[in-house]
């Protein structure tokens, strides 16, 4: 135990209260029983001497300075394991998101911000900066190789911009850029299942770093770009593998 936290009489407007105003049912942020189920399941527990329970507790006690300055909020992977088991269904991920949002954009982690910015550069939405040409080339090249070298898949189709296909499939741009062969297994499954699917040359990248950057405006922009690509091809189902 170190220095005492002074809890003054006068009611102070806490960060937590502001977040609660934004969330349905206030995200149940007040309901914590401090049972620790969230912390037990969190992959980021222990980093920066922090865990989801402690973060929420600091919010409850109005320790706003420390709450808003911890880097831990960027170590959360938004996996939602905490809220999944929380007996009170407390929306800790939203608390983390709002803490991220409170950081000025320029002070948010460069890796995430750069990926967000990269995705905004063209309509592929690729955080790796892959262009439509790069994407089409890699897909066709890998598909040719499969058809030539793998028995039983001589007829493998990897449709691109097929109008009216049932499924519009997204692909994390890490694969075409760094591990193109990793796209193959899913193609095979879809082929064997006889699925009516397609890639799109626009809006195909599955990732959205603007979400993780808590950049709501650009998060929305990217989602809209991707949705438009699906609509433009007249596909029924948007399959995002992220």
């Amino acid at each position, binding site marked *: 135990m170190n220095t005492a936290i002074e809890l003054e009489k006068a009611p102070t407007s806490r960060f937590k209260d502001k977040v609660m105003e934004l969330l349905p049912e206030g995200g149940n942020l007040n309901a914590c029983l401090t049972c620790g189920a969230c912390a037990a399941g969190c992959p980021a527990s222990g980093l920066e001497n922090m865990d989801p329970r402690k973060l929420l*507790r600091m919010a409850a006690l109005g320790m706003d300075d420390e709450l808003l300055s911890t880097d831990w909020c960027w170590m959360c992977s938004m996996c939602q394991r905490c809220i999944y088991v929380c007996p009170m269904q407390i929306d800790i991920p939203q608390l983390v998101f709002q803490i991220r949002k409170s950081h000025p954009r320029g002070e948010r982690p460069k890796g995430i911000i750069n990926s967000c910015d990269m995705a905004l550069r063209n309509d592929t939405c690729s955080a790796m900066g892959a262009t439509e040409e790069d994407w089409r080339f890699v897909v066709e090249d890998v598909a040719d190789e499969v058809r030539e070298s793998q028995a039983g898949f001589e007829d493998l189709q990897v449709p691109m911009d097929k109008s009216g296909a049932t499924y519009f499939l997204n692909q994390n741009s890490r694969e075409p850029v760094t591990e193109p062969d990793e796209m193959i297994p899913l193609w095979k499954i879809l082929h064997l299942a006889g699925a009516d699917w397609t890639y799109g040359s626009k809006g195909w990248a599955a990732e959205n770093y603007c979400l993780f950057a808590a950049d709501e405006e650009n998060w929305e922009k990217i989602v809209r770009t991707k949705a438009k690509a699906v609509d433009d091809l007249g596909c029924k189902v948007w399959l995002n593998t992220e």
Partner: protein
Amino acid sequence: MTLSEVTGISGEAGDFRVSVKQNPRYIDMNRCIACGECAAKCPKKVDDEFNAGINKRRAAYIKYGQAVPLKYAIDAANCIYLARGKCRACEKFCPTDAIDFEDKEKNVDVNVGSVILAPGWSPFDPKGVDYLGCAESPDIVTSMEYERLLSASGPCMGHLKRPSDSREPKKIAWLQCVGSRNLNRCDNAYCSSVCCMYAIKQALVTAEHLEGDDLSQTVFYMDIRSHGKEFDRYFEKAQADGVNFVRARPHTIEPGKDGTGVTMRYTLDDGKVVVEDFDMAVLSVGLEASKDALSLADTFGIALDEFRFAQTSSFAPVASSREGVFVTGAFQAPKAIPRSVAEASAAAADAARLLTAAKGTLTRSKSYPREKDLAGQQPRVGVFVCSCGINIAGVVDVKEVVAYAEGLPHVVYAENNLFSCSADTQDLIAKRIEEHNLNRIVVAACTPRTHEPLFQDTLREAGLNAYLIEMANIRNQNAWVHQNAPEAATAKAKDQVRMAVAKAALDYPLARDAVPVTQKALVIGGGLAGMGAALNLADQGFEAVLLEKDARLGGNAWHLDTTPKGEPVRPMLEEMIQRTENHANIKVLKNAALKSATGSVGQFVSKIAVDGQTRAVTYGAAVLATGARESVPTEYGYGEDARILTHLEFDRKLREDAAQLGQAQSAVFIQCVGSREPNRPYCSRVCCTHTVKSAIHLKTLNPAMNVYVLYRDMRTYGLNEILYQKARDLGVIFIRYDVDQKPAVAIEGADLKVTVDDPIVQRPLKIDTDLLVLAAAIEPHASDELIALYKCGVNADGFLNEAHPKLRPVDMAVDGLFVAGLCNYPKPVDESIEQAKAAAARAATVLSQEAMQLDAIKSFVTDDCDGCALCLDVCPYRAIKLEEQATEGNGQVHKRIVTDKALCKGCGLCAATCPKGGVHVHGFTLDQLKAQVSAALVDVV
């Protein structure tokens, strides 16, 4: 009526017509003697629901060995014959022709004045909750399954084995609050009230069942809720015995690496994450309303609360929303056995109150022929040796035993019966008594515990005194335990019969005395509990004298603002006082003190001083409801600052000037002030709920107020948990402290500051507050005088003791005394009223009789008593007194004991202690016992 369900109800309180559908049992209960042949021969195996499906039963079955009535049934859904028309194996082998495949569903209408609903509860089913892992590992079981695994009468016969590989588990984890206090994929926001205690019990019993130094039991919990009488002692014993209590909820239970056991991750208060393997995990599942209960509620049209428990008020805790229909047990709200049993009596009290006008109108009494006069007759003993189907005859050569019995002294008749207990054998025994002029009977069969009353009745019907029977238990104590030694068993059966005959020859007729009952009650204490008991008794038509030491009735209830359900206490209290004071059957004595108490159940006499005048009251039973009080805190600056209040002081302020309280900007509550500490090691039960209720009140008065609750374990048991949740939702901050690191209160000039360590952020919090409310312990009044007068008992904490915490929760160990309210243990308004009604119902069982029939097996004093008084100390019932008597003729005074037949239970400790033969017990005199022992040793000595 078993296998029955209510299909409809019409009419109104006092005159209901209830339609009951009775499903066929396919076994005639009059003929079934529960020998088990049907189940033994039934080829159809079915999952045994009583053992949570761990083992199999047959389609012909009893649910468990202690089933009442102990009669088999055929499970129509699984019976091969009933489903497919072939088999009937049970019918072929049933020795009493009890199988009846023609049995049909019956519809019966019953006319009743009141109805009690007690449909119980269902355990929460955790199978749908993936992170609990039930589908992943067989070594994750519910507490209900574990209870059966652990039970000596369960499928493992008490030898604990884990399901995956049948190995003995060494390291077991319990997870609390599974299906309780949970809103995520579960609607059970309430606390199930019982799981903490059963988990502690299971952990302790587990340690008794296993051997080795490498055992460990770990309970993962949020708050330990050991809020009942003696519960905290049990919790502390478990800690001392090495059970690990870890305040943490593991995230996911995963199967162990090799497919056995489990592994889980949990976080300690300081944030340290631990990954630990266990051999087994037990899910402490909560209580829910059962589906049957819901359809029953629907049939009766009674209101349920949001959690589907029966809706009741705190002032009428067993009355449903429909007049004349009462509810009890976990159907009313989740609760443990002691309160369930007390509540059952409370429901009986309310039901009886409604039936007062009809009381006794349907009573029938059995008549018997006049007892034969045996004066001058030699013993003529008849011996009946039971085969018990094959239970006895399969091991013991019963024919040989009969032949042997025929040769014993005084025996004039002996025979063998297939089942001595069957109805036709009863007729036969009566006939033989007549034919052979038998005047003593020996039945060599099973245990007198279950069967002696039956044979006693047969004797009475044949004109013999009921105490001229002896039983030799050649089944339980012989055939069952010597199955592999039939010859020795037969020899032992002969020994047993010889002993019984020897004693029977010395049996003599005994008379059951009756003690006249004064049909009036004394109720001591005029608080909620005392008034509740007096009112119920008075409404049932009994006179009650209510003794109150103060100048007004009402007790602690005057200081309470509202109940946890938000009902204002004052109007209810005033109405209750008015009813009590105006009731024709209640005599209220205020400023009164009990001065003496003599006599015993049925006829007590007390002197009561009222305003300096003493009067005598005679009464048949008494209810002790002497209350308790809020203790005066000796810490946290109490008494040094007007802003520091106890709960009751806070309630008073709330009543007198709520607006002023609402102006506070900050308030702090400290829990367990004087409770759960070495000098008061019990939980005061009501304070957590009172605090959350008060905190909500403050937040309602002023939503901006900062309210903090400093606690050790929040014990808002049952539906009170909803208040705890509401308080948190309103922003009240709960901070846990350890007893060895208690909060500190400092008055710094005009400031009041409370410092406490927050276990989660691991830093001290210094709270600047306007108000500090202390949850002062409830402590009992000194009860030395009551104890001296009534010879009743208190526990180590000074609370009056019940005869048995579970089975007789409102009876005291002294017959005719009953207990209710705070004097028994701290409790809230609804539980006090429940207990008051329960005490009234129990007292009514005494008061409703004009005379109490006593058992004939009682101690009696002989001329050999010289007044040494050794027996006084050993008598557990205080049934013996020493008196001075004048010796006939010479007028000299000597001392001699006197026994009170109403109190004596015939245990015989006095007779065993007396060195002079000065006191004996009827039916077990030294002569009778000596004859039995001599007969046992006849071949030896």
